[in-house]
């Protein structure tokens, strides 16, 4: 049973190794990838059921008790995010395979994509599941390093700059991460998260605050919170659609997850966290305004991504069960929807040959299916009911109003404004891309690169994969009731860290 916790990490890692070794057999790579990700979905579902029903599933690696060995733990939050993430990665893999087969035929293998993609999945899974700060660092590095490779794969001159920005900023934040771990270890002598919860509380107050803030910055860079967000809109948009989709959907959320996990388990806040609320407000507004200034579809979506990170920080800032419930719901919703939108953007670009909004038009007539595939997640992102985004947003608004502080009210108002601006941005995309006169596709700006745009049509697997994600986001809305209940319980677990701590350390105090 407990081995199920390690599968989402070890399986893709082993599969990545095999995939690397079998680089010349394209079909084997594809089947291996789909198979492993499929297994992870099932595994995550079981973990979610088990953790919700019987409490966190804990695996002490190597049989060494916590806090000595490395603990993997699937509680409600991590298994929920794991489930959603694996659905997204699965769908994106289908999309990517479809794209490659459409453009290059079945035989052409791509030696790096599949192993790197599996590594990325392993890293994401590990980040969710690990109960150890240093292991979390390792998880981040697996995830990020494979993302570096994916974003610079077959780079063209246009993309190499983006790859640099991304890689360098991520590396800088990784180095801060290591520094933070060193400080943590220097002061507490442990890196087990559950153990840290008790040990950090014994530190002098000033050190606690400094440490908590440093942690916020380290994960804030990954999560793209303003003012640490700059790198994101400069780098994500250039990558091929499936890569951007996974990045946008998952990587920032892993940052958010780490932020939530550490801020609830290791540090604790007695009341509403005004600094975080302020950051949330700025993030929301700066991101939304950034989106309005863009003419590039992918950049617009990237800025919206930043903006909506603000929502998640908002819930964390409120720091109570309602707020955290909202965050969890929002993360679940946003992973799906943001990934979907980038996939749709990929479909649009294939048709139009460009990402410049001003050069597109009339696509609703030419490609009505894409129009539908865009409209639903777009509305969801804008928080329009009855889609998943609305449910999450409502929970956050309730938390904000319920916080009873002026900051809370201000951020709630900001959230409403952001919602309006998001809708405006989406509606503008709609009016420019899908309405108006039909425009002829622009020629492929770089025919030598791997990405085929402007000429090819989208294949069935690509549409199907996007459709699967759209349906997933609808399903999230449909089952929002039970989902909300689970999220609520997960938020309760977060606020009362005892459950996690007991699950990891046992009933004793960790000896």
């Amino acid at each position, binding site marked *: 049973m407990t081995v199920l916790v390690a599968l989402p990490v070890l399986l893709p*890692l082993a599969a990545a190794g095999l995939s690397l070794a079998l680089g010349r057999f394209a079909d084997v790579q594809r089947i291996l990838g789909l198979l492993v990700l499929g297994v992870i979905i099932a595994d995550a579902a079981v973990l979610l059921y088990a953790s919700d029903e019987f409490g966190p599933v804990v695996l002490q690696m190597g049989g*060494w008790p916590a806090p000595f060995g490395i603990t993997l733990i699937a509680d409600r939050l991590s298994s929920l995010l794991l489930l959603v993430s694996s659905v997204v990665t699965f769908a994106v893999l289908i999309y990517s395979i479809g794209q490659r087969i459409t453009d290059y035929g079945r035989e052409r293998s791509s030696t790096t994509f599949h192993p790197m993609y599996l590594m990325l999945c392993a890293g994401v899974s590990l980040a969710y599941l690990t109960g150890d700060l240093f292991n979390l660092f390792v998880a981040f590095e697996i995830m990020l390093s494979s993302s570096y490779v994916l974003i610079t794969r077959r780079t063209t001159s246009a993309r190499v700059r983006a790859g640099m920005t991304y890689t360098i900023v991520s590396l800088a934040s990784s180095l801060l991460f290591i520094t933070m771990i060193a400080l943590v270890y220097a002061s507490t002598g442990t890196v087990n998260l559950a153990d840290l919860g008790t040990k950090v509380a014994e530190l*002098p107050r000033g050190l606690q605050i400094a440490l908590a803030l440093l942690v916020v910055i380290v994960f804030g860079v990954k999560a793209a919170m303003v003012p640490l967000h700059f790198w994101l809109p400069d780098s994500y948009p250039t990558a091929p659609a499936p890569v951007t989709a996974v990045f946008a959907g998952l990587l920032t959320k892993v940052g958010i997850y780490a932020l939530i996990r550490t801020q609830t388990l290791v540090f604790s806040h007695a009341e509403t966290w005004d600094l975080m609320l302020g950051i949330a407000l700025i993030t929301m507004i700066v991101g939304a305004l950034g989106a309005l200034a863009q003419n590039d579809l992918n950049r617009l979506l990237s800025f919206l991504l930043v903006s909506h990170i603000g929502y998640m920080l908002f819930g964390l800032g409120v720091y109570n069960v309602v707020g955290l419930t909202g965050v969890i719901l929002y993360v679940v919703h946003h992973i799906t929807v943001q990934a979907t939108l980038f996939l749709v953007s990929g479909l649009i670009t294939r048709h139009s040959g460009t990402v410049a909004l001003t050069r597109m038009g009339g696509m609703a007539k030419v490609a009505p299916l894409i129009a539908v595939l865009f409209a639903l997640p777009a509305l969801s992102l804008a928080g329009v009911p009855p889609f998943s985004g609305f449910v999450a947003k*409502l929970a956050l608004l309730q938390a904000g109003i319920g916080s009873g502080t002026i900051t809370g009210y201000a951020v709630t108002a900001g959230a409403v404004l952001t919602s309006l601006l998001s809708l405006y941005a989406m509606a503008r995309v709609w009016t420019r891309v899908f309405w*108006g006169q039909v425009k002829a596709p622009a020629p492929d700006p770089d025919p030598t690169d791997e990405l085929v745009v402007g000429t090819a049509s989208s294949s069935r697997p690509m549409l199907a994969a996007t459709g699967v994600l759209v349906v997933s986001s609808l399903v999230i809305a449909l089952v929002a*009731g039970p989902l909300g209940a689970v999220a609520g319980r997960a938020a309760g677990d977060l606020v009362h860290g005892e459950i996690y701590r007991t699950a990891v350390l046992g009933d004793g105090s960790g000896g």
Partner: protein
Amino acid sequence: MFGFVIAHLLVAVLLPLVARRNTRAAFLIAAVPPAAAAVWLIARTPQVLAGETMTETVPWVPLIGLNFGFRLDALALVMTILVCGLGVLVLIYADSYFARGRGDARRSAPLLLGFAGAMLGLVVADDLTTVYIFWELTTVCSFLLVGQAGISRESRRSALQALMITSLGGLVMLLGFVVLGETAGTYRISELIDRPPTGTATAVAAVLILVGAFTKSAQLPFHNWLPAAMVAPTPISAYLHAASMVKAGVFLVARLGPIFEAQLEWRVPAVVFGLATMLFGGWRALHEHDLKKLLAYGTVSQLGFLMVLFGAGSHDAALAGATMLLAHGLFKATLFLVVGMIDHQAGTRDIRKLSGLAARQPLLAVIAALAAGSMAGLPPMLGFLGKEAAFGAFLSGPAGAAVDAFLVIGSMLTVAYSLRMWFGAFGTKPGLAQTTVKPADLQSLIPAGLPALAGLVLGVAYPVANELADGYATSYESVGKPAELALWHGFTLPLGLSVLAVAGGLVLHRVRTPLTAWRNRLPQPLNAQRGYERITALLERVAVAVTARTQVGSLPTYLGIVLVTVVVIPGSALLIQFTVPGDLRAYDNLMQVPLSLGVVLAALAVLRAHRRLTAVLLVGVVGYGIGGLFIVDGAPDLALAQFLVETLTVVAFVFVLRRLPERFSQADSSKAIRIPKAIIATAAGLFVALAAIGFSSARRAPPEASQYFMGHAEKGAGATNVVNAIIVDFRAFDTVGEIAVLAVAATGVASLILASRYERRRREQTQQQEVRG
């Protein structure tokens, strides 16, 4: 009720499958769900009027109070009859209106049905969250219906404007709902009415909710989206922008009025803005040449009227409001459909081009006359009943008198533009050729005629109307004897006001030409359309300005900001609490001094290096020095790894440097850039060092984990080298991850370096092909 809503939406979702093949069938199929709902509702009327309300709750996300709560009471009944009944008629009308097989038709059928479903859900909602859900659904449907294919820039703009303004209101309203719901602890409207919350929060909620109602119901200053939305096809205007959607705002005020009965913050703005809107809309309608625009401003005016009635918060006003709600829906739908037919058959709806239509289309003229009469408040139409009740509702007190005075002026305007509308459309104008028209078909005439007829019938059968309206009005306690609807109350003041209104209207209609000329000379400081455009332009400006300043696109700046954040935020927290630890020593092992010195010197020298290779070697020395420090520390494993890795790193650099220029390409940047960078870097470096001292001084006990590892390495992990035991056993999982990173990096390097080889190969292939070809 939920079943009906779902049925609407489901059929709407599946309808495109039909619409793709056969648009006619699509409209007729689309008419089925509203028809069924209408029949069912009408069958329910007696029970509802008997006070037997039906409720239904479908939980969605109970945790956050998100439920589908429904309740069929008198107000809901009135609205549902309007929504479903008119829905059926409009769909039948649309079937003949839209040309067969056109994209507009394919799109419109499902959207109209979906809209009907949303509207139905909205009017029977008994939960604030439910209200909001359907509210926004109608907004989205409206956006898509107004924009259609968005071919013209005007249609795109109008659709966007309607969307943005109503969404703005919707979101503010949602905020109000949340405030209200969180204050009262329930989102259920009927519960809120039973136990109305009080206090500042409630007042805030009231204002916020009113904003939503104002935008949706096109009240000043948000009115302008409605006339702009007239670019939509006529059946859509008739349904959305006359009969149903724009009513949502006033409906909401009607629905929630009893909760805020005691709040002045609710009643005063509603009445004031309502009156202003009524007058403004009527005034504008008086000058429009486009029949649709004329009707649209008429709608604005009527919505203002309704806002006054529902916002006033009394039994009598509510009675008048419910009556007018019904009346307006009936006559305005008819008028829009009639205009649609004129447009269709005459090819224009400009009253300056239409002439002599009454003779050629007598039936149409009669239908229009019935509707216009109701609009003007002529007896025995339903409109008359409503208007008279309205005049009667504000008789007490000076405030009431003032309201009444404005209402009368508004009604004069209404009479005037009703006349203008009818004569403009059907009258014979001197000096204008008779307009040639195609005959209207029955499928259009019947849907247009039925509501007009209903207005007449309900006016005559005023007890029925009274019963319907009173069912809602009783949710307010009446002060004296409750008013009743009747055609004849005797010679009362309201009757006099009615007469005054009609007479004034006639006069206004006569002097309309000089009036228009005078109006055109007036300066127009208050133009809502320009205001909207200004605001959006400002938004763009702000967006671009903020983005241009925050997103500078320069990596050094970004990294600088990250570092400044590190120094400022946790750094200040650290500094405030920093105390020099008592056990601070200069060194622990003498060898640390020369090694550190070497490391420091080499590191500083890197900054001054101009040759790449020199810099690399210096960094290598730093690495070897660190390795030396590791040895001194008693970490041979680490030192070994450090030396090996350092060497490999240097070699890797050297491999790459073979191809790169000898010196760094970057010219030395100016002092103005270098110095801030140096300051930031130094501050950040000092922060880390200080933090290292501060944090390491906080630990008192040796780490348990390490003690455990030392105790268990030999027996448990089979190793006397504890570090190795940790690497391959205690924390073997880290090792697995670490080698994964290595594998990834190697793969990435290969993918980057070999890319040029692939490109070269491809280039050579194409060259060869060119040579051959």
